[in-house]
Structures are given as C-alpha cells and as structure tokens.
C-alpha cells in the first residue's frame, strides 16, 4: 500500500490530539478530543475549522474566462459561461451513461476558472480535464496551497476580524482576501449547511492562518466524522456513497444544478457527456430517486440497509446510501434511493436492520434548516 499523504496541517492535528485515519490516500483527522457529537454541535452553534487540504484545487485557464468556461461546459452540465466574475457554483462531471464521475465547485476568478474536486477523484478528474481541454486550455493542479473550511454562525465575525471584506461577501461569492499578509482565495461556501468560508492559502502559511483563526474563542478544530454528520443533516451528497458513476443527476435529485441554458430547451443545450440520457430522464422521469429518510426510534440505519415497501415480504425497493445519528436533529437521519413509485414525501418504508424491519419516513431535506447568507 502506498504511503499516506499528509496535509500542511498534519502537525497541527497531532498537537490538537486528533485521531488520524486514512482517507482518500491522506492521513486525516476523523475527530479531536471533543468527539464527533460535540464537534458537530459546536459547528452549528459557533464555528468549526476543517482541514480540507486533501481536496483537489485546479486552475483551468485559456485566453479568457469565456474560453475556460466553454471548455468546462463540455464536461459538466452546468452554466459555467453565465457565471459572473467573483461567483461560484456547484456542478458535476458526467459520463456517457449520464452517471456522475465526481461533484465539484467551480468559480469565476476573473480570467480563469478555479475548481475544487473531491480528494478520492482528483487524479481522474484532472486527467479527464487535461484530455478534453488541453492544449487549447491549461489544466493545472494547485499543489502548493492548503484548503481550510471555516463553518458556522461565528465564521463571518472570525474571518472579518482578519479582513473586513469577508463580511461583504454573499453566499457563493469568491474573493481574494488578505489574511495577516497572506493572499487567500476565499469563497463564502462550505458543505455543512452553515454559513462559512472555504479558504485557500499557500501551504507554507496554512498553519499560521489556522492558528490565527483558532485564536478566536468560538473556533474549534473539527474532524471528518462531524463533517460527515453535518453534511448528511444538510441533505448534501457524499460522492462515492450517495452519488457515483452509475447514478444520474436526475436520480440524485440534483437537476437544480443543471441551469436552464444547458437543458434540452436551452440556448446551449447538451454538449456534455450523457446529455441524451439525462434529458430523457428529465422529460420522462427516472426509475429511482434520492430521498431523505428519518428512521423511527433511535437506532441509526447506515449505508447498505435495504428498504422495503412493507413490514414483511416483497422485494427490496431501495437502499440507504448514507445514514447516521444527526446530533442537531437529535435522532437518526439517512438518505438513500427508492423506486419512483415510492418516492413521495411522507411515505413509510421499512429498513432491514439486524434481521428486523423497522419503519422510516420519507422526509424533505435538509433535515436541519440551512443557515447561509444569501
């Protein structure tokens, strides 16, 4: 097995008493002494600082932003060209079968595109972009910058203390800020359902910036364990669990990220892999759909639990793809896929747990209200 990579904050994690685990080829903090539950609640109450340096940061550049945007639109079904300067969007790479190869954030940073992709997929994503876009465009992985996420209701006050312009940013704005003299590429976004920022800084300054943020009484380091329960409560997909190469954006209920201009009747319709499959499903429906699920009682139902229409008998109608205890909800939460005929909010389905079928209710997501600054 290849040696695990370390992020620029590795030493800081150890100093903070983190429990380190292998994740997507990196040695990452799954939790700190506070523990997953308190870390989760702290993020929703105050602010959490997450090391997400394992994620891929990529710059796509051509003669102009327009050139880069037109290139990326050949790989993803989002409106990249129409994204304004200083704004960010969510999207996904698709394959010829309409499946999702990875999800990503992309930002218009004036004359280029800044893209953030999942750690586990970044090698494939960068290869895909290089193959499709070079030599007309350049696709460069940024390997000398760390990525931090500062999330929670105190995030604005904390970051604005270092650069007041942080407070002027709206949700999904991007800007270059000056944090103690360090150039930071900042977006007002995250993956917790809370207000907050993702902050790209040169690796050599990552530790000092992290420490400057942690000096604020409201900020605690938060590990991958709480990151997972926060995103799940917020109804956000984890690539590899809730979406994958065999899942289409229609099945995954992510068609909101396919803007009108790229849809079948749009001005720049299609032109991305699997457009025919995706447009057919958008017109005629998909056979299965991603839904939120609330198990009754206290027992969490986790990924892999089979779902049934009835308390006994019958074939499986679906499967849970993410499930855990939601510390803010105060009970178990899950998401998964069910056949279209069962995908109505309020429907009761049954999950088979330790040989017994137990009821779950299809519930609208997010399970906790999003708290972002529009």
């Amino acid at each position, binding site marked *: 097995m290849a040696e695990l990579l370390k992020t620029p904050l590795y030493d800081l994690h150890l100093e903070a008493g983190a429990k380190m685990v292998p994740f997507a080829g990196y040695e990452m903090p799954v*939790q700190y002494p506070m*523990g*997953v*539950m*308190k870390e989760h609640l702290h993020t929703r109450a105050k602010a959490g600082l997450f090391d997400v340096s394992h994620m891929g940061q990529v710059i796509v550049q051509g003669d102009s932003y327009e050139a880069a945007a037109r290139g990326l639109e050949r790989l993803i079904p989002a409106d990249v060209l129409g994204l304004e300067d200083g704004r960010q969007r969510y999207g996904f790479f698709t394959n010829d079968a309409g499946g999702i190869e990875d999800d990503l954030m992309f930002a218009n940073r004036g004359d280029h595109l800044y893209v953030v992709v999942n750690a586990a997929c970044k090698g494939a994503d960068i290869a895909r972009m290089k193959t499709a876009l070079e030599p007309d465009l350049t696709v460069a992985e940024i390997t000398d910058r760390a990525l931090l996420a500062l999330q929670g209701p105190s995030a604005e006050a904390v970051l604005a203390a270092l650069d007041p312009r942080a407070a002027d940013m709206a949700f999904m704005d991007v800007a270059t800020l000056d944090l103690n003299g360090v150039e930071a590429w900042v977006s007002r976004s995250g993956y917790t359902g809370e207000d907050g920022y993702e902050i790209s800084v040169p690796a050599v300054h990552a530790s000092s910036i992290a420490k400057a943020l942690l000096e604020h009484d409201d900020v605690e380091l938060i590990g991958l*364990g709480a990151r997972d*329960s926060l995103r799940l409560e917020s109804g956000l997909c984890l690539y590899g669990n809730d979406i994958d190469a065999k899942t289409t954006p229609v099945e995954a209920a992510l068609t909101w990220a396919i803007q009108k201009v790229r849809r079948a009747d749009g001005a720049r319709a299609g032109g991305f892999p699997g457009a025919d499959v995706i447009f057919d499903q958008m017109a005629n429906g998909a056979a299965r759909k991603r839904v939120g699920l609330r198990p009754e009682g*206290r*027992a*969490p139902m*986790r990924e892999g639990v089979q779902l049934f229409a009835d308390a006994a008998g019958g074939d499986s109608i679906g499967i849970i793809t993410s499930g*855990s*205890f939601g*510390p803010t909800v105060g009970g*178990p939460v899950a998401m998964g896929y069910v056949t279209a005929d069962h995908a109505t909010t309020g429907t009761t389905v049954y999950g088979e747990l*330790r040989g017994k079928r137990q009821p779950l209710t299809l519930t609208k997501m997010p399970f906790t209200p999003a708290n972002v600054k529009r």
Partner: protein
Amino acid sequence: MKYTEEHEWLREESDGVYVVGITEHATTQLGDLVFVELPEVGTTVSKDDEIVVIESVKAASDILAPLDGEIVEVNEALAEDPSLANSDAIGDGWFFKIKPSDLSQMDDMMDEAAYNKMIG
C-alpha cells in the same frame, strides 16, 4: 471488578448478581454512543452470545454475554440516554445485570491491573 478481553467490566452486586458494562477505554474508542438495544429481562444467555447492540456516531457494535446466565435487570436509563456510557462508563452507564450459572467462567477474566496492561 473483573474485566473481559471484550472490554466489559463486571462488578458483583449481591446474591450472585453481577452488573455489566463496558470500560471507559471502550467508550472512548467507540465515540459518542447514540443507541443501545438491551436484552429482555429474563432471557437466558450463553457466554459470547451477542446480546446488546450499541451504535456510536461512527458504527454499530455488539456486546457479548460475558458468562452463561440469566439477565435479571437492564439499564432503561441507558436506552433512553446512551451518552451515559460515555460520561460514566463504570457507574450510571451500566448495561445489564446477570445471574451467572457457571461462576468458573470468571476464572479467565482479568483484574484491573491485567486489563490496564492489555489496553497498554
């Protein structure tokens, strides 16, 4: 107190009844407990039967019967508030009380010093 390799502790209460829980080392490793499913009172169990299900924020685990015997009481308060196992592993966070049918099965169990050595 006696300890098992499965990180359970046993404390004799009275009349040959033993209180059973899991150690602080175990609850620290498991993380915050969010769900506990306890056996029915009156159940006769055999050593190593999976009789308790616990779920932490991270994963599900089984607790094995440390001995042959009968379950004579379970900690309903723990089922209501599984975090008791984290906050007070050897006190309020107990799991069940068992009346062992073969006390010789305790011979292999560890004392505190041996357990602490095992967890190093």
